[in-house]
């Protein structure tokens, strides 16, 4: 269970995230939407330990992890992906995933087995031996998820893993996220593809200029006046209607 208590993050004079409070229960899918520059990725960086918040606290299962380094937060069961994917380019897809698995498993052979399982789960088998840098963007996004999954997170933060995917890939990604949810993994998802978000999220949080302007079920968000003005636009309401 993740709790953000009035988290603020500033860069010099710019307040990227202002007093954002948020909860994500175990096994829940929470969506975060908002225009570019709204502070979504900064929020992920604060939660996952890459930035310490200037004010407020991040609690994981009641424990204050605000100043904890990223690798320790991962060990506690919270793992994140990067919007701009960061594959270990010169290593094979399987080795990429195995490095994630080695966080929980000390034996290389056990981690290798786990990596094969996760690679299969994410349908990356045909590319298991390919160098990660040779993959097209859609597969790189999937590798990003696979690698994070291999650390066996209870809570997974996905930063725009659907951006740039074609329709087939998008469908596969949604299936994968649903199956993770079915296994009890909690998810916080940043995404611009509203169609996917409406289908996946149980609750959506809207950020605008670093502040939370709305929170609620996908239906209530889609009809929220402030959200339509700040982010979705009139076309979305018309198309939806």
């Amino acid at each position, binding site marked *: 269970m993740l709790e953000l208590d009035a988290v603020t993050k500033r860069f010099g004079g710019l307040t990227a995230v202002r007093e954002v409070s948020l909860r994500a229960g175990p096994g829940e899918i929470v969506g975060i939407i908002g225009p570019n520059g709204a502070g979504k990725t900064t929020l992920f960086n604060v939660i996952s330990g890459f930035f310490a918040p200037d004010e407020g606290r991040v609690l994981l299962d009641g424990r204050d992890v605000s100043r904890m380094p990223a690798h320790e937060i991962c060990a506690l069961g919270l*793992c994140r992906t990067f919007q701009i994917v960061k594959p270990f380019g010169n290593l094979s897809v399987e080795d990429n995933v195995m490095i994630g698995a080695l966080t929980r498993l000390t034996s290389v052979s056990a981690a290798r087995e786990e990596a094969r399982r996760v690679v299969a789960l994410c349908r990356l088998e045909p590319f298991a031996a390919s160098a990660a840098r040779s993959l097209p963007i859609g597969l790189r996004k999937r590798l990003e998820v696979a690698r994070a999954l291999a650390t066996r997170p209870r809570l997974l933060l996905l930063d725009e893993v659907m951006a740039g995917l074609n329709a087939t890939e998008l469908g596969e990604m949604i299936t994968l996220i649903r199956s993770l949810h079915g296994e009890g993994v909690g998810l916080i998802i940043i995404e611009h593809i509203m169609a996917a978000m409406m289908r996946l999220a149980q609750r959506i949080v809207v950020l605008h200029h670093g502040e939370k302007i709305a929170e609620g079920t996908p239906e209530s968000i889609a009809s929220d006046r402030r959200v339509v003005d700040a982010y979705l636009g009139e076309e979305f309401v018309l198309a939806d209607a």
Partner: protein
Amino acid sequence: MRRHALAVGFFGAAALTPLVIHDGFFLDSLVLILMWGAVSGAWNVAGGYAGQVSLGHSAFFGIGAYSAALMATRLHASPWLGMLAGAVVATAAGLVIGYLSNRLKGPYFALATIAFSQVLLIVASRWRAFTAGSEGVPVPFRPGFWTLGFASKVSWVYLVLCLALAIYLVQVYLERSRIGYQLAGVREDEDAAQALGIPSRRLKVRAIAASAALTSVCGTLWAQYVGFVDPFYVFSVDLSVRFALNAIIGGVGTAMGPFVGSLLITSLETTLRAVFSDIRGGLVGIYLIIYGCLLIVVVRLIPQGLVGWFGQRIRAARRYARA
């Protein structure tokens, strides 16, 4: 076994050579090839596997050379004890520089390591009471195994061969162990590694410290072999560059790369020096120019190094044969 084929061939040939060839000059070259290969292998632990490209590894080499030489002259201690002391001091130095330069990447890290080696050069050449200053330290020759005094070059070949093998095995371990894979992650992308639960800072410091200790052990043996420690040589940037160069030309992050690089560079240097030994004074440094050209060619055309390049070709050929 197949993945060790190159190592078996290389070290096997080195082991058999003294049985066939008794020429002193040739055996001396063999000792140097193995020695510089071993130091580059030690460099590779940090520079190759952990991606911490240092151009100041002569600092650790010098620490090993000085520790044993000073302990032998001042305390009449065995060079083996000096080797141990050197490794301890180098580990500490590696921890300090690893910790201080932890956030530095790429060229900035390399510059920090150069600065570190130059600080040690100044200390060693100026602190006369402690190190005998810029005149250097002659290493006393006392025959015997315990005192590391071997008159025969053949003994040195086998001793340095053992060192080279040990460092080869350390690298092989790094290719297959948990920490080795985690270091590869840190090398490829540190942010991603941290997000996946890898304590990257700690692992980098450990890799540098281990690399420093191994480099220091090489330094001790080298000083005992040559019989003299000159601060301007053991702490030189030239030497640091040589350590990095062998590994880069042979193949960074491959266990045999440093040895293949050393075979090429050391024998080339020896040959060129001999060939150009009786030309006019102005041209004595010409081997350095050839050296430099070779480096440019390798880095431009095969950045993965000779071992890396051949490895790829062999794997591609096998795939082709199967298909």
